[in-house]
């Protein structure tokens, strides 16, 4: 008898606990959703002061934000930076990942540490010494400096995503290609690149989304002509008193649209947890 009562009590506790967790999660997500909705509403508002909804609707903030912040120039810089970073990160990252996946050599652990460190140390810590060096080399303030700075977390990220991916490709395929006389270069293009396609696509989308959102390094190294969208948004919010808040929110919506569009594309090809970290996917027994 008492056992069943205790059982019922603990089941009630379990249910309360589950409810509490779901409640917290819902509260969190609802507030984030409303936060985004508030920005969206404000960007279409004529005037919005202390009421539930604005007094009237307009799209003029978008045209004025576009002109005021010179969004076309900023978007063009962003596109250039992001694609250059993705391309260069793949160019140096994929071959390095191949070596790390296939060969054992002295100093490998040290090399892995070298590639892991930039992901563990936050950008602002190494960004300041980096910016100092880039200013000395007269690269800071130019788009090249911004690209170089953004490559520092991007290249190791490609390496860490691609290494386990390459490890799972059967080395016999490469040996077969070698037997038929293919050199490293031909083997790379004709065997590895097609097989690595999905992994390269996933890695490049992840780098792309992360680079769009990476604020600190661009902020520390960009000059007036080499701001990406996120840095321009920061300056717009920072100097908010000067401009209408709706105009800043319109710009935030443009930024959000760009990020979300790429995020949705990325999510079609990759598991969300990969955006955060590299953790080896363990085989799930059925």
């Amino acid at each position, binding site marked *: 008898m008492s056992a069943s009562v205790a059982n019922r009590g603990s089941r009630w506790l379990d249910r309360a606990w589950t409810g509490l967790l779901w409640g917290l999660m819902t509260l969190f997500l609802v507030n984030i959703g409303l936060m985004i909705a508030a920005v969206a509403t404000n960007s279409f508002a004529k005037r919005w002061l202390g009421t539930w909804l604005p007094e009237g609707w307009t799209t003029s903030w978008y045209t004025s934000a576009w002109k005021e912040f010179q969004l076309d120039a900023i978007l063009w810089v962003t596109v250039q930076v992001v694609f250059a970073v993705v391309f260069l990160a793949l160019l140096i990252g994929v071959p390095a990942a191949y070596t790390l996946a296939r060969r054992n050599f002295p100093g490998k652990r040290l090399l892995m540490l070298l590639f892991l460190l930039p992901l563990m140390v936050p950008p602002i810590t190494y960004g300041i*010494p980096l910016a100092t060096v880039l200013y000395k080399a007269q690269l800071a303030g130019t788009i090249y400096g911004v690209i170089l700075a953004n490559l520092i977390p991007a290249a190791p990220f490609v390496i860490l995503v691609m290494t386990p991916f390459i490890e799972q490709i059967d080395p016999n395929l490469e040996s077969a290609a070698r037997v038929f006389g293919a050199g490293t270069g031909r083997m790379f293009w004709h065997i590895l690149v097609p097989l690595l396609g999905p992994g390269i696509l996933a890695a490049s989308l992840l780098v792309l989304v992360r680079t769009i959102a990476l604020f*600190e390094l661009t902020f520390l190294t960009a000059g007036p002509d080499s701001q990406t969208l996120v840095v321009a948004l920061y300056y717009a919010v920072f100097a908010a008193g000067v401009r209408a808040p709706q105009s800043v929110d319109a710009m935030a919506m443009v930024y959000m649209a760009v990020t979300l569009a790429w995020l949705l594309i990325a999510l079609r090809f990759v598991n969300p947890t990969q*955006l955060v970290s590299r953790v080896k996917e363990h085989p799930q027994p059925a």
Partner: protein
Amino acid sequence: MTAPEAPRAAFDRVLLLVVPAAAFMLLLFIYPFLYGLALSFNPKEGGALANYAHFFTTDNLWPTIWTTLRLALPATLINVGLALPIAFKMRVKSPYQRWATTILVIPITLGTVLIAEGMLTYFGPKGWLAQFLQFFHLYEGSIRLTHNYWGVLISLVISGFPFAFLLILSYITGIDPVLARAASTLGADPRSQFRHIYLPLLAPGLAMCFCLAFVQAFSVFPSAVLLGSPAGPTRVISIAAYEAAFEQYDYSMASAIAMIMGFVQLVIVAAVLGARSLMYRGPVSAGKG
């Protein structure tokens, strides 16, 4: 970096593929770091340690360490503390899991700047949250959640919680469910499964997650400026470093602050990983998995 002692004739040219990436990291990550370290001991005036002496004797510099810790530690504890039970609940593959992970990725990719702008609009004194609370008379008086400590803390939770959640979820789903099933055939309910199976196996992952979440929170910059009061209660250490570098153009001092920042992070990370090593070490899969 490549294998030097391999016999010359059989030198493996594949090893050369790693050279560009390694050279890039040495040139743009290690070199600036060492350069900054050297520069920090080479102040504009005074002896080698003048920058550090200045930092620890100036009233608007050394307290930034505590200001930052006061923000970063609670934020990390909240994030990891909430993420662990929720991730544990969602460890079984289900449609919810896919949906929740997808939705939670959004705040991470939007980044801290957009979160700050959204919070200024939504949590502000005239925002929807304040209106809602006053409309239902849940809270009277003015609601101040922006431009102070709480604004920054909330923004750290919004950007940090999804990160901690996804990381812990990937660790939990990496633990072989066979172990938990074995425990449940022996009569263990979910709670004791958690205590005796999952928690010990998760310890390394949790320690790693805590470190990563802490390091992120510790380097808070945009939200401390936009959502906090950067002159007062949320004057964090990264603001001090930024001001030294880009407002006073004292790169030597800025490097010194960056080094102090890195050192404090390292101390906390070492403490967490050290505490972790007192606990269970072993494989997380049953047999061959």
